[in-house]
């Protein structure tokens, strides 16, 4: 054995990157949704995920609930956290500058991390069983893939379609109207307040899905999705930037792209460089922001 060739490695990186990228895409969808509704960068987006994951972990492992019940509980907790964030932080700061709101959401994220450390300090490193613990090898490129990763990709597909359909329903149209012209929307009888709550609930649901699905990939600690092993906050934001912070299909495409770019750091020619994945992400973000700050996957829905 002389080791795999570059082409083989690229194939594996592509498959792994797309699967990892589906987590980023779920995070990015939530970020884009909140940005369109509140004009805020939501640094708590991934902590909705970690909190949901911890709730699901508690239900499944500590209280012995069934897996579907645990997932449902985790998602409910995530949505509750999203609504609380809207009530306690975003709404009171609605007239503040965007940087202030950014600091506020970062505070929510840190509070969540602190809460996780507090309630789960007996077992600092946790593992959770997968929905179905199996894996297989993708034929052509020899990439090992777990069923859990495939489920994540499937959930992403379902969530994208569901969101697309939702935005054509009356509630979805109300959200779009309130985002584009809040005053006019109020005048035709749309409660901007309720729309804001609804948006944050959906965003938190997406974050919760990302957390609960990606947690069983590996071991996790408090702050798992923000700065832990499953770090998805920065990639999620990068995906949202690629989508011009506005396009939902763009967020999905951006998430998958960022996943692949990050996986290039695992190629054997990068093995000498410490933290090659972080370096690639930083370089990629700089190039995108300096060359095309308006995004790449912006689609036709973009409005300046």
């Amino acid at each position, binding site marked *: 054995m002389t080791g795999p060739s570059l082409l083989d490695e690229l194939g594996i990186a592509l498959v792994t990157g797309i699967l990892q990228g589906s987590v980023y895409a779920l995070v990015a969808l939530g970020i884009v949704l909140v940005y369109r509704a509140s004009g805020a960068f939501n640094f708590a987006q991934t902590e909705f995920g970690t909190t949901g994951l911890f709730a699901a972990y508690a239900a499944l492992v500590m209280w012995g609930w069934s897996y579907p019940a645990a997932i449902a509980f985790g998602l409910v907790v995530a949505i509750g956290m999203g609504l609380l964030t809207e009530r306690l932080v975003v709404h009171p700061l609605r007239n503040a*500058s965007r940087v202030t709101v950014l600091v506020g959401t970062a505070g929510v994220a840190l509070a969540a991390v602190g809460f996780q450390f507090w309630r789960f300090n007996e077992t600092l490193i946790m593992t959770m069983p997968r929905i179905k613990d199996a894996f297989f090898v993708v034929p052509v490129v020899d990439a090992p893939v777990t069923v859990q990763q495939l489920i994540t990709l499937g959930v992403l597909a379902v969530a994208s379609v569901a969101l697309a359909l939702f935005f054509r329903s009356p509630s979805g149209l109300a959200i779009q109207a309130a985002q584009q012209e809040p005053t006019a929307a109020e005048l035709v009888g749309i409660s901007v307040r309720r729309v804001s709550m609804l948006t944050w609930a959906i965003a938190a649901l997406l974050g919760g899905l990302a957390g609960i699905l990606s947690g069983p990939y590996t071991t996790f600690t408090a702050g798992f999705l923000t700065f832990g092993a499953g770090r998805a906050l*920065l990639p999620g934001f990068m995906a949202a930037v690629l989508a011009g912070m506005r396009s939902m299909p763009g967020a999905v495409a951006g998430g998958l792209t960022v996943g692949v770019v990050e996986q290039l750091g695992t190629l054997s020619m990068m093995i000498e460089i410490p933290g090659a994945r972080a370096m690639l*992400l930083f370089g990629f*973000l700089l190039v995108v922001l300096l060359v095309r700050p308006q995004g790449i996957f912006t689609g036709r829905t973009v409005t300046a």
Partner: protein
Amino acid sequence: MTATDDTTVIPAVETETAAAAGDQTAADERPAEVGLHRDFRPSGAGWLARGIVWAFLAWVVLAFPVNAFSPFHVGVADIDVASLAAIYAIGGLSLNVLLGYCGQISFGHQAFVGLGAFVSAYIVTDLQLSFWLAVGAAAVFGGLQAVLLGAVSLRLTGLYFALVTLAYGTFAQETLFGITALTGGEGGKPAPRPEFFASGYRYYFLCLGFLVLVLWLDWRLTASKAGRAMAALRENPRVAASYGINVRGYILVAFAVSGIFAGIAGSLIAHHDEVIVGSSFDFRLALLFILMTVVGGLRNRVGVVIGSVFFALLEEGALVSMFRLGGFFEGTLGLPTEFVSLVVGPILLVLTLTLYPGGIGQQVAPLRGWLAGRKFDPHAGSGHDVEVSDVRA
């Protein structure tokens, strides 16, 4: 301050809390208030009371950590915590220049500080050069990297810049601090203290000296044309530019100053710990700096220092043991001491943002004015929200 048509009264990041008396800027902005108190002179008893409080403060800062005239026993570990508090105050002031004066948030401050730490350790350990040279080099490197990042930020709006700093922090943490030649790998990099300052007590005074230096530089910065230019460009860069202010130039100056302060803080942390590892400069440190600055009160020097000291003591568990709260936190709440700051800090942050935009600086403003020889005014420092519209972010 400039105001445009869609102005709103904005708390927190935009609130002018420097009004907490004493500051040069505050005096400029509140001539009416200064005039009101100009004729007031404290009586003899008033001066005595102020003198006693001043003496008490001086004792707490100078003598208490070194056990002089102290009814309590302060151990060797506690003096190290006191040094760390002074160092964190420098770090908080560093972030304050960016976030407070310029309105640019940095989520990568752990990298600013960390680079200074490793540069300093490298110079002392590998090159065998003096500590003073190492501090200077750390400050220069800190300033350089900040200017480079700042040059990038000139092309970006406020929120996107936050992402760049976040990515830079992760990159520095994993790539730069992963270079074994610079950081010594897993075992860490030794960074011995200079011989004269080897003892914890002397090192504390060294840190205190650097804090005074940084405070003086910060004061000169805000009192100069550069400080007023930064205030103008923070409120509205376009209006500032139309008044002939070199917006880009002054943003770069702010980055340089912030980086220099961070480099000094990093160098002091390195020689404080004596052995440093890359993993100690993680994202949590950056968030801790944000907590210190915002809870302390943006643009308020005294507030930021108090906030930094508060969080340093809380982080190291000194505050909990000082007030014997260990039983309450660990017993009643089941919260281990090392996580107290992680739980309490964010709650304070959110409360500060939504209810007390001036932070600690606003709360101590009445006392500060009284100590400066004015009447005790319980409303000092509040109700001076500046009208701004942040068109940049």
